[in-house]
């Protein structure tokens, strides 16, 4: 066990995967000499060489497209997209190519590719650097989509994603990159399991990635006011771990989903629908969502008002309690 930042944990996880399996190849813009703009791959080129930690041309469609070619020869590429807002040039390669290969080939061809995306806002960045686009990919059959929130999960989940024989979109909460936490040597948790961080009998907060810490802070604040509010870290978006969500709903009867993406057709909408389908009689209030407004991510100076805050989460909890 050791204490690491989320960036350090990703770096350690990637190093372990590369050491364990020489078919694992990292590719992306500025990931070699520089170690990536967030330093997630720092030191890996020195250790594994320029063939396995590849500084690519500046072309996202190329990164994913060539990763597919490598995977067709048995490699296991891990692509870095420099910022969330720059994944779109690769959209066709991800959505029409990567996601569909297996089904198109009648199950004959699998593509074990991981696409790492630093996601979300809160770092004062300029436009296109703070987006939350998980819904696009979760809406695409053939892709697995996961989202880590802590150093421990970052370390284990990146390795599990690399071991997966399916394509995995791997979200990293960039405003939590420098947060430290304990990392255990082993994990008994499956990649596609949600995690209950806190049990609550009044209300359950469901969050993933960067909003997990927000949800925890809100739950603590609510506890001070005498409410028992639980927190579920989703961890996996596709597939969704519905059974964990259902269990929690049965205990608390109230669910508030918190994410940075816009609520309109966001993951919260899917969770709300799924829970009302399966737990209708356990619900004491409608499932509520706290997320972005349906507008482009705003300029940095107003992002605090835009991002789901503890206050906004508490307001939703209040609303659910008083329903």
């Amino acid at each position, binding site marked *: 066990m050791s204490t690491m930042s989320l960036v350090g944990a990703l770096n350690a996880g990637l190093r372990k995967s590369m050491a364990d399996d020489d078919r694992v190849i990292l590719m992306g813009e500025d990931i070699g*000499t520089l170690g990536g703009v967030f330093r997630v791959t720092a030191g890996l080129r020195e250790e594994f060489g320029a063939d396995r930690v590849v500084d690519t041309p500046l072309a996202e469609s*190329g990164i994913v497209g060539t990763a597919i070619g490598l995977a067709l020869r048995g490699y296991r590429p891990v692509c870095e997209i420099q910022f969330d807002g720059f994944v779109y040039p690769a959209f066709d390669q991800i959505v029409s190519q990567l996601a569909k290969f297996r089904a198109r080939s009648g199950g004959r061809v699998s593509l074990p590719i991981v696409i790492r995306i630093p996601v979300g806002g809160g770092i004062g960045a300029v436009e296109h650097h703070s987006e939350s686009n998980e819904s696009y990919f979760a809406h695409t059959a053939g892709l697995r989509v996961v989202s880590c929130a802590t150093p421990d999960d970052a370390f284990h989940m990146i390795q599990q994603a690399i071991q997966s024989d399916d394509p995995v979109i791997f979200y990293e909460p960039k405003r939590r990159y420098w947060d430290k936490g304990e990392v255990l040597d082993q994990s008994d948790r499956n990649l596609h399991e949600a995690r209950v961080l806190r049990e609550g009998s009044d209300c359950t907060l469901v969050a993933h990635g960067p909003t997990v810490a927000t949800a925890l802070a809100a739950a603590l604040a609510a506890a001070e006011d005498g409410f028992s509010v639980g927190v579920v870290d989703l961890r996996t978006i596709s597939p969704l771990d519905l059974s964990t969500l259902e269990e929690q709903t049965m205990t608390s009867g109230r669910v508030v989903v918190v994410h940075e993406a816009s609520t309109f057709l966001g993951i919260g909408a899917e969770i709300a629908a799924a829970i009302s389908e399966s737990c209708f009689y356990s619900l004491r209030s409608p499932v509520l969502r706290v997320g972005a407004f349906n507008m482009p991510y705003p*300029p940095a100076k107003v992002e605090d008002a835009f991002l789901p805050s503890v206050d906004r989460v508490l307001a939703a909890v209040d609303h659910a309690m008083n329903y």
Partner: protein
Amino acid sequence: MSRQTDSQSTTKTRPVPPTLSVITEGSPLSFVNPDGTLTADGEAHGIDIELTRGLYREMLLARTLDREALSLQRQGELNLWLMCLGQEAAQIGSVAALLPSDMIFPSYREHAVALYRGVTPAELLVQWRGLAHSGWDPRKYNLQMAALVLGTHTLHATGYAVGARMEQTDEVVAAYFGDGATSQGDVNEAFNWASAGSLPVLFICQNNQWAISTPTSVQSGGQIFRRAAAFGMPTWFVDGNDVLAVHAATTAAAAHIRLNGGPALIEAETYRMAGHSSSDDPTRYRSDEELESWARRDPLTRIEKLLRLMETPESFFAELDESAERLGAEVRDACRNLEPTELADLFGNVYAEPHDSLEAERRSYQESARALAGVNR
């Protein structure tokens, strides 16, 4: 390979500048050596002293803006700044050779171009202070918003040029982009599209040798200007640190486009003297020797030397220093006096026509903001 540009179409009335042959071989076109003396091409072309002074002035002002903005960033007044240090000649030499009516599609580093077009310091800084996504009205300056998703705007320029072609204007539509952006599919689609449609697009690539930490040797397998031949457009490969050569090449390329209609490519060989941005540490990936070798080719120093060789009065430099000081003060004041932005005001910017669900979100935001303000009071 050279193309005749002076013996064709008589339908256009604009005067044809001194013909400059299309350059696709050898070293970049250069007029002024780093020590301020003229090259053989420079001698042959001749030097316009007034033009030279004007270009020098604009470069110095651009450098002042850049320096002030970086120091504002270091003081925490700006969130981010992308320095154009070292690229003043590539930017000023090219923009000055265009007409004010020529539409420009810039990337994020073209501050010198923006300043030249009359964009105010406040309009320039508002984006980097984190208050807006863009600061100026594109129509006012014939300067579009900065493209941050690399290369996308080269296609926008191409589409804009389709309109110019249909309306039979003699506009040139210019797109500025970097060496890194040339790896994007969009840029290569734009090259092909503009050429296939014989569209009046001037592609201006500032090859500053780096795309963040990625050098051009890793970025591309061949020289960028050589692509032009395969796409079927003329190209000028020019010393991007030589403002007079850039100006002459751009003048020739623009004249070619106005006369013949089709696109052209300029590759200006320059150097990003600072980090990629205020967040970057370039010592992690490049050597001091490389930086020093380019410092010796500084675009301002060589023109200052040339102007002194040409016996420019001291008063010219003194006045210019005063202008630069005034600009510096203006930049600092403009930055600190920028109005705050309210999230509530941004809802109305998303759609041109009413959008019911966003309108409902705006109302709920305002209600909750009021409620939260009440709680915290």
